[in-house]
């Protein structure tokens, strides 16, 4: 009987787990849903009971109504879709030009001391600058047309992409580079076959950060002499205290950024499945 004793001690009765294991992954999602629902209910109560003036906080129902009205009739000359399309186009062209400049710039900074001396000051100068600081100068130089807006957004995207690219390139190990050199690879082949693939996951991360900066800058760029765009729509609405349209604008931008994030995550999974592995 004494031989059994240790077993008895070891198998001290455990409290049954409060949640079954299969439900665990859904807990954050459940909590998030509850929080969002709670906020909407609170919003509804606050605005419909008259705690807050509807001028400052229209009811959720009113916002949904405006959303549909915006889709059909539009505001300040364009439908919601047209505003969103214009803004999307600006952000995407800015991303295109920023990537075209920043990825090679990052590669050069990470691989050539001379190139680093040339480009690092530019990147480090742009990095901490708020876009609103250089917006007036860009307007003086390039006017108020489409190129100026795209340029301002692109400028805000260059630093994150270039810095992420350079960091990614530097994560290639000496032995990986030496291995390629021992196979007779030229400098250009090392770049193409080792450095660029190594940097790819970082480049995508840089693009994700840049898109965040891009949406921020978009609204600022569209404050100045735009005739269409989500930022312009919100700014016009704000001037006449049409708060429901401002809120619709915020929600649409949030939804678009979220969609971009999701698309980039899919791109990451498909094109850089090695991300995070060594």
């Amino acid at each position, binding site marked *: 009987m004494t031989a059994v004793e240790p077993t008895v001690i070891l198998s001290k009765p455990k409290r049954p787990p409060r949640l079954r294991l299969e439900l665990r992954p859904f807990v954050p999602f459940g909590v998030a849903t509850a929080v969002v629902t709670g906020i909407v209910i609170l919003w509804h109560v606050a605005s419909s009971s008259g705690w807050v003036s509807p001028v400052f906080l229209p009811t959720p129902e009113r916002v949904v109504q405006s959303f549909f009205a915006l889709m059909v009739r539009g505001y300040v000359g364009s439908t919601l879709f047209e505003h969103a399309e214009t803004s999307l186009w600006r952000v995407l062209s800015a991303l295109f030009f920023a990537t075209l400049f920043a990825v090679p710039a990052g590669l050069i900074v990470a691989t050539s001391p001379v190139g680093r001396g040339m480009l690092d000051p530019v990147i480090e100068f742009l990095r901490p600058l708020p876009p609103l600081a250089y917006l007036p100068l860009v307007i003086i130089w390039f006017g108020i047309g489409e190129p100026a807006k795209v340029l301002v957004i692109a400028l805000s995207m260059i630093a994150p992409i270039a810095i992420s690219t350079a960091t990614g390139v530097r994560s290639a*190990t000496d*032995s*990986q580079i*030496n*291995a*390629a*050199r*021992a*196979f*007779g*690879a030229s400098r250009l*082949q090392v770049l193409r*076959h*080792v450095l660029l*693939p*190594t940097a*790819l996951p970082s480049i995508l991360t840089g693009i994700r950060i840049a898109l965040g900066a891009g949406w921020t800058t978009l609204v600022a760029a569209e404050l100045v002499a735009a005739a269409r765009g989500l930022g312009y729509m919100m700014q016009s609405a704000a001037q006449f205290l049409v708060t429901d349209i401002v809120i619709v604008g915020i929600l649409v931008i949030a939804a678009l950024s979220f969609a971009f994030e999701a698309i980039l995550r899919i791109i990451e999974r498909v094109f*850089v*499945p*090695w991300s995070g*592995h*060594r």
Partner: protein
Amino acid sequence: MSDLRLDTVSFAYGGKSRETLILDRVSLSIASGQFVAVLGQSGSGKTSLLNLAAGFETPTAGTVSIDGRIASGPSADRAVVFQDDALFVWLNARDNVALPLQLKGIAAPERRRRADALLASVGLAGDGDKSIWTLSGGMRQRVGIARALAAEPKFLLMDEPLGALDAMTRERMQELLLQVWHTSRTGALLITHSVEEALFLATEIIVLAPQPGRIVLRTGVAFGARFLAGEPARRLRSEPGFILARETLLAAIHGEATAVAA
């Protein structure tokens, strides 16, 4: 027959000012069919020696030559296997092995055929499509060895290739390495911490003393040849001659060099 020769090679960081002398007048040569193992404590310049032989570093004094011609910079006739395997994680096993062939401009179907044959020769037949990060440490090193052999190098330079493996995998990999080297008829240079590994694999062992790295002992060995001739590995490793040689080498590594019975 090819011959990789280091002639009174010295190497220092800080260039001509020679702030830190890493290697002091080291001479050695590796011919086809030879397997030279370099032993020494940490800081004896073993890895620098390999980097010089591979052309990754340039000697401060002395020359590195292949078949009598000065070798400057790396070239495809010297392949390198690294301790951290240095595989390209964005390529699958087959494409890793095929990369040297791709850089040589060999067409895709031929690359694929040769890469698969090389993978089979290191015991990875059918693993070509696997992602690198799904392979074990031993399998990764096999891919690294297959990749090094892909360019059909004259010399195989290895920097602690089995250093990160567990003891059991390590012994099996040593046997594989011997067979692969024997079939490929290359000249091999192995940097290692392990005296037993050097004894089992090498035809010649060189011991470096630290600070600055210099050769304190050279000796010929034949255990690998006997393994290839069919003697069982365990019997060789437990033989009195093997153990005696091991103790002698250990004494030399720790600076108690005496006359060596080779």
